[in-house]
């Protein structure tokens, strides 16, 4: 289990997070929702090691973990897919999946091993790309998002953080990505999903955590929660 405990972060006059806590269990999709400025991005950045908190921190299986930079987070099994996909459009799918962690002998790339594992990984996630040797520039938006998510799995992480994965996608491609998120859960990964789209959140998550003005503002089991109660927690309309 990976958890954030009593995380506080202040930017100048703005208290971005105030004693926020969050538990992430294996095989569970947790949706992190909240209005703009609620502190979602800051919390994600703390977990991913991009920002260090003023107080509080991340614990892994109950042990406090030191996360000083994104590499620490990756080493501890925390993998993040950012909204801007950070793919190299000129490279093919295989090259993008293994970017920065290429399989090689000495300095020479092991093309065949990489292509084989890339294909196995994409097949196991049911991502359909006809030719994985074409540049990513030639793929559809949904396929690119799928490649970006698959890439997060290369280091065998325990937690995958997805930042607005469906924001720029059409209906059919959104469905593809949501399916992919369900398969991440089936693999036993903890998934933290940041989304503005409550329909997506309700479709795919097990638990919804609401932030409001930098504080925990409610937690629901998705199966039990109504849309109204989540919206009320986001806007602070009713207690």
């Amino acid at each position, binding site marked *: 289990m990976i958890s954030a405990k009593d995380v506080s972060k202040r930017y100048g006059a703005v208290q971005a997070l105030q004693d926020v806590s969050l538990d992430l269990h294996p095989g569970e999709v947790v949706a992190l929702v909240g209005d703009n400025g609620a502190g979602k991005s800051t919390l994600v950045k703390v977990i991913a090691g991009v920002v260090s908190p003023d107080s509080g921190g991340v614990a892994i299986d109950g042990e406090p973990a030191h996360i000083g930079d994104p590499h620490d987070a990756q080493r501890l099994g925390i993998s993040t897919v950012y909204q801007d996909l950070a793919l190299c459009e000129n490279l093919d799918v295989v090259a993008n999946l293994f970017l*920065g962690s290429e399989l090689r002998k000495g300095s020479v790339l092991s093309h065949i091993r990489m292509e*084989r594992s890339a294909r196995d990984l994409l097949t196991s996630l049911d991502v359909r790309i006809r030719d994985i040797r074409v540049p990513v520039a030639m793929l559809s938006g949904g396929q690119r998002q799928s490649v970006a998510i698959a890439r997060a799995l290369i280091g065998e992480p325990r937690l995958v953080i997805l930042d607005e994965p469906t924001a720029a996608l059409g209906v059919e491609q959104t469905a593809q990505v949501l399916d992919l998120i369900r398969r991440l859960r089936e693999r036993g990964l903890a998934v933290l999903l940041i989304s503005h789209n409550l329909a997506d959140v309700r479709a795919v998550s097990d638990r919804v955590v609401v932030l409001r003005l930098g504080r925990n503002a409610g937690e629901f089991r998705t199966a039990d929660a109504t849309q109204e109660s989540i919206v009320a927690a986001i806007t602070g309309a009713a207690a």
Partner: protein
Amino acid sequence: MNAATVTRKPYTPKEAIERLRHGDLGAWPVVGALIAIAVVFGSLNEHFLSPENLTNLALQMAATGTISLGIIMVLLLGEIDLSAGSVSGLCAVVMAILSVRQGWNPILAIVVALAAGALVGLLHGIMFTRLRMPSFVVTLAGLIGWQGLLLYLLGEGGIVNLPFDGFVAKLSDTWLPPWLAWFIVALLVLVSGGSSLINRRLRLAAELPVPPAWWTAVKIGGLTVVLAGAVLVMSADRGVPLLLVIFGTLVVAFDLVLRHTAFGRWMYAVGGNVEAARRAGISVTRIRVLAFVLSSTLAAFGGILSASRLSAVNQGSGGSDILLMAIAAAVIGGTSLFGGRGRTYAALLGILVIQSITNGMYLLSVDSSVRYMVTAAVLALAVAIDSLARRGSTP
């Protein structure tokens, strides 16, 4: 696993057009241009396609082609090196002064000159990455500054002649005996054919798609025809020039490095999306510095080859239109100015186009004013194709 998934199907015409629209033109526009040039100049002047002239062409290509190869290294990152011409002249002068005026061993002089080139590139790279100066400005300063140092080093005389029978001058006056040329052709065909076969086996064993067998055969057959044709033509004259072999070796070696090593993969990654490369843990700074070092070192080597052709260095070494020809060759050959796209063969094909145009126009005694305008038009066309391809590739 059935046959359909194991054999990679050739593209249907529709998919092929789709690929073209996305800028995956490959080398085809250049090959088309070369054929057009051969037909036009060949019909205007019977000497253009003569073995003697084609051998001269091969000899003329090597120096500027090597500089162009260096330019490709920085173009792949989406940067530019305007100093390559000056650096080539400067390092040639360093080599000439050490070997002639100081009486050093010529090979040692060449090594020191290459090291000087690497040092210059290191300086450019550090100014670009640490001081965050635009590469355009760094190398523009280099263009002027290294030219100044060249003039300073040459001093009053302004010219250093290389002995005609010395090692350096001999480089461009050495011709491969026919048996050696044919041996190299056979070796290249065997190695490339053999590696395709082995690769095919390994891919099939890993249940990965392979191109159809006839396509591999056509590619190797094509390579054989082109190489054998070139050797046949040049053997009818003086033989294959050593300079061409050196240049060809560099092109092939750098192509292998760029496509099969982690360093090469990271060059393309940095050129494609700096932010993605950085997030993937690639040391962007190191890649950038290395690219500038490679560019200047190759420029230095090109300068030495050029000095060898001329058997001298003078105040004009590395000057006039060498830089622009080298950049134009890289772009005409299909290297994108926007980074991340291109192969080292662009240097070979691009310089072949430019040098053929230059050479053909000399044969026709066309005024250099017209020559400049035609070369400019070809360059503009190549950049237009590159820009359109880039627009097609962004969603």
